[in-house]
């Protein structure tokens, strides 16, 4: 147990290092963007003098390293800076959106992950048979439809034609449970389809891979039923790749849902970051990027730990 505890600590330490690398990468990439907030703010009325004055006010005239140090120093002390676009604290802007994003991501994950697992395992257990083939084509089709098309079809069918659900994911201030259900039904359905197909396929592949291993064949030869072989032998060993696939898919729910946010007008963090890019609002952009990266790293950390815990050989320190 102590070994595992140390491992966890080590992983967290490593994640912090990764986060540091991320901050450098993010800062570097953000600074590749042509133009800056001063120009964006003034738009067509940008005269050189006005831009220069505003740049000075925003501290954009400092050398990049100074700005990086300032920013990183702020982050460490919990101050993500002030948005250049609307002069509100970045943390305030993000926190209001983050809860929305997490809500959407959580709902999607709760539905999509078990669904995908079951789908993948069932397909693997029946590999080569009709049910597997049908699922194969179904998941491939689900993956293959652009999500904006899927979302638009849902809106046309369920909102415009049938009028069952709203086309915008909008939660009124006095919302009850039913309002939440209505508001989230379409975006969550869209995301579930996009994500679970992908997770199901990876699950199936990983389980199948284990099923073809000699030790499982041995178990099968000894007469243990397939379901037992899958659940007792194959699955624990397939956990590594599966949780990895799940982690990757779920990280998508933070930054990758731009299109769903745009179509359903859902105020999440992804569209906040798109705004930041458009407005060249570097403090906001960098903070969002760090947020996504942190979210991802946490998921990956969990995935790694799960893999370690599931694989006895890795557990004893491999």
């Amino acid at each position: 147990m102590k070994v595992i505890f140390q491992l966890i600590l080590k992983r967290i330490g490593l994640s912090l290092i990764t986060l540091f690398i991320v901050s450098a990468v993010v800062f570097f990439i953000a600074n590749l963007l042509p133009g800056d907030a001063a120009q964006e703010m003034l738009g067509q009325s940008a005269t050189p003098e006005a831009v220069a004055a505003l740049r000075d006010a925003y501290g954009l005239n400092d050398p990049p390293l100074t700005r990086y140090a300032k920013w990183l120093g702020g982050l460490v002390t919990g101050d993500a800076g002030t948005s250049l676009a609307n002069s509100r604290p970045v943390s305030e802007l993000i926190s209001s959106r983050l809860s929305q994003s997490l809500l959407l991501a959580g709902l999607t994950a709760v539905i999509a992950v078990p669904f995908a697992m079951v789908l993948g395992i069932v397909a693997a257990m029946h590999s080569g048979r009709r049910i597997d083939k049908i699922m194969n084509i179904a998941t491939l089709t689900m993956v293959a439809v652009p999500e904006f098309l899927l979302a638009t079809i849902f809106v046309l069918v369920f909102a415009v034609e049938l009028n069952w659900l709203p086309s915008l994911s909008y939660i009124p201030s006095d919302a009850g449970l039913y309002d939440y259900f209505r508001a989230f039904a379409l975006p969550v359905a869209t995301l579930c389809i996009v994500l679970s197909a992908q997770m199901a396929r990876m699950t199936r592949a990983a389980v199948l891979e284990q099923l073809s291993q000699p030790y499982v064949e041995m178990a099968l030869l000894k007469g243990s039923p397939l379901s037992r072989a899958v659940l007792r032998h194959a699955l624990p060993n397939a956990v590594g790749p599966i949780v990895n696939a799940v982690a990757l898919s779920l990280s998508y729910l933070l930054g990758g849902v731009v299109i769903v946010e745009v179509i359903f007008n859902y105020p999440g963090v992804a569209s906040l970051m798109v705004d930041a890019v458009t407005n060249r609002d570097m403090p906001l952009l960098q903070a969002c990027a760090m947020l996504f990266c942190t979210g991802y790293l946490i998921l990956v950390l969990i995935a790694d730990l799960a893999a370690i815990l599931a694989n006895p050989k890795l557990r004893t320190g491999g």
Partner: protein
Amino acid sequence: MMSVFKSMPVSGKLGSALVAFWLFIALFGPWLAPHTASEIVAYDVFEPIGGEYVLGTDYIGRDVFSRILDGTRFTIFIPLLAAALACSAGTLIALYSAVSHPRTDEIIARFMDALISIPSKIFSLVMIAAFGSSVPILLTITAISYMPGSFRIARALAVNVASMDFVTVARTRGESRLYLAVKEILPNILHPMLADFGLRFVFVVLLLSSLSFLGLGVQPPEADLGSLVRENISGLAEGAPAVIVPAIAIATITIAVNLVIDSLRGGATYAAKGK
């Protein structure tokens, strides 16, 4: 090659035929098109199938058939190249990482995590804002976006394999790291990585269409199939072929690629299991 085809299950044969069909379109489509892709041929927009124009007209009256013939090459070749680049680079680095000193492994893994943790759409958005949108840029961005993902999958598999007895045996036998990576580990992760390639191909196709949704994808007057779906989306309500046909085309391409990969894999894996 022929024997591989013959040994395939029906789905694999179907997939191969479809892949061959789309490759043909991708290679020769522009020459087969009755009109140029950007020519406005009709006043009526979103015409249905079977009129004067085989697949109707698009949102400004261009010939959908010609535009699909012209656009398929982007949807085939960019993802194919990008996925191949991403998967091979990811797998190679993962192999290297798996057989290297744990510290090297750790450094590579950290760096990959840093890269992968940036969402691909956001990464593309920033890169395209910085460098503009062109086919080489799109290829680079998509390859970079999906490489760390491939790496993670490959590494998870490779580490698993590397901890197995036969690898430990080979290691104690004193085999070189190159031998371990190529002869012992690679064959055992190849099949899942092929599946990964299939998925990644699909991802790139979808990322491209997502980018076109945001106006950042293949730039007009050229259009990949995703862009065709996007630019004609307002025709969806009236069931215009201009939006449905390219969507079906994307679906058949991605499904076909995966069917082929699946059946190749099935030939190896399931055959051994006698299923």
